[in-house]
């Protein structure tokens, strides 16, 4: 049973090692996974993710919205109750499902051509950024229902919009290296330990000391045939070594 425990630990070490390698391969040294730019076809002034589409928390996200010319654009992250109320009366594109890196389903919703007020004047954005020709949202997803909105500002629209996204986990690169080092160390240590431990295939060797002081190896049957013997010494010899 002891050996099974050590093997399980070694397996965990291998898993950690593989997870670390995967983390480095996917996220890279900047701990981000980037996708885009992806063109979005819309003539409207708002794109929002429906409640529930963003299903993760504690993920660092970046959304870069770029529009041709120097059109003003805003990207914001807000509680879905706020965001959906804000765009309710506006013609918009709603993202109804999203799978990273970039698998998007959208649905058009009817409404007026303009937003009810400038997005930059709203006080409930969890994070938001505006700019001319482009805007970059950087935020950590909280543990609440949130929506991302890409909005035009003023009389502009979102024609020609492209979106790039990035997902990051804070410190994933350093943690991946940590996993590789720790996993590798565990695998190696267990391997060395198991090499030293006698297992179920333990071999017992009997050695007889003759009267002239010479030693001779005998079998278990020969030992039994000798009858009563005086045991002078018991020695454990690591596997692979001969006395």
């Amino acid at each position, binding site marked *: 049973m002891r050996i099974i425990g050590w093997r399980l630990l070694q397996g965990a070490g291998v898993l950690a090692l593989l997870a670390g390698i995967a983390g480095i391969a996917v996220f890279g040294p900047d701990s981000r996974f980037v996708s885009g730019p992806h063109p979005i076809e819309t003539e409207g002034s708002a794109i929002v993710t429906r409640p529930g589409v963003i299903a993760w928390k504690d993920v660092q996200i970046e959304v870069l919205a770029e529009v041709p010319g120097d059109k003003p654009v805003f990207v914001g992250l807000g509680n879905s*109750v706020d965001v959906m109320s804000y765009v309710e009366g506006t013609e918009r594109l709603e993202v109804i499902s999203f799978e990273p890196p970039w698998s998007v389903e959208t649905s058009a919703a009817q409404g007026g051509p303009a937003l009810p007020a400038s997005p930059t004047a709203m006080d409930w954005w969890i994070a938001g950024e505006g700019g001319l020709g482009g805007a970059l949202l950087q935020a950590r997803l909280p543990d609440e*229902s949130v929506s991302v909105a890409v909005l035009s500002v003023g009389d502009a629209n979102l024609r020609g919009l492209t979106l790039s996204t990035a997902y990051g986990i804070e410190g994933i690169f350093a943690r991946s290296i940590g996993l590789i080092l720790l996993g590798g160390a565990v695998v190696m240590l267990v391997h060395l330990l198991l090499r030293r431990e006698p297992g179920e295939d333990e071999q017992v060797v009997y050695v007889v000391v003759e009267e002239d002081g010479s030693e001779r190896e005998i079998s278990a049957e020969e030992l039994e045939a000798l009858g009563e013997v005086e045991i002078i010494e018991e020695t454990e010899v690591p596997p692979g070594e001969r006395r």
Partner: protein
Amino acid sequence: MRAATLAVATLMVLAGCALPGERDPDAPVVKHVLPDEEVDDVVREYRTVRGAAVDALDPQPLSTVETGSALAIDTGMFTIAEELEREEFAFDGAFTVEESYLPRFSRYPLWFATVVSDDATGRRQVQVFERGTASEPWLVTLTAEITEKTRLPGVGRSGDAARRVAPDDGTAMAGAPEDILASLAASLEDDEAEATWRDDPFVEQMAGALRANQQLDGVSFEQSWSTEPEVYALRTEDGGALVFGTLLRQNTFTVDGGLRVTWPENSPQRAFWPDGVVGTGSLRYAHQLVVYVPPDGSDEPPRTLGASGGVIDSSADPN
């Protein structure tokens, strides 16, 4: 094996810290109405704007911080103050938010209630702030004064949010919040108040005003009561409810033929009808109330805990 266990635990912690979590897909889409630390800012903004409006007796800025009957009462108050050259107190100095009741919502409109005391005067007001949509500001929809000694019942909580009661939900209570207000209005309309409300301080105060109006010589007086549809309610810890709502009162004075009736210098009637009334004159009042509704099985009747009000409209018909 202790070393092995420690190593496994370290691996799990290291891996777990690095992984993001998936939200519960069945978690409801809700919003906590407002972070507690932002309540003071909302109250301060309201008092600043209202204070400036009161100082100038200009109702225009009020519409950016008040709505509904709260706005109508203050606008009426400005008319009276202007006509009677009376100075109104602004409530724009230092204040203390004694209590905030902050519910959760799955959609707009959002609202919350506070108990605010004015540090200079010690006067205490229960105020309800409402936000109709995400693009609108917080507006006061109800203000009711409570006395220094009034203690509001504890409000039930679900997590860190105050629990709401739907206006039409009377489950396990003396009545639904809107029904309780309707019963109060009905008892005020009737000279013989329902036994439930007979000893209520607000009912007694209104009964006194009714008797005074009925005693005017040469004038026949009629009074009617109704309720406004906007009702807000919170679940109290004992299973009852704290209800915030508005009653509307219409006083109609019909002056006997050939007579002109004038009112005393400081009365609201004087402000709206400086030359008195010939024929018929009506004044409409709004009374904003805080009402406690006890749970089923309680010996206590429903009762008003606070009130504020004033004239919101007038009309006169000489024929």
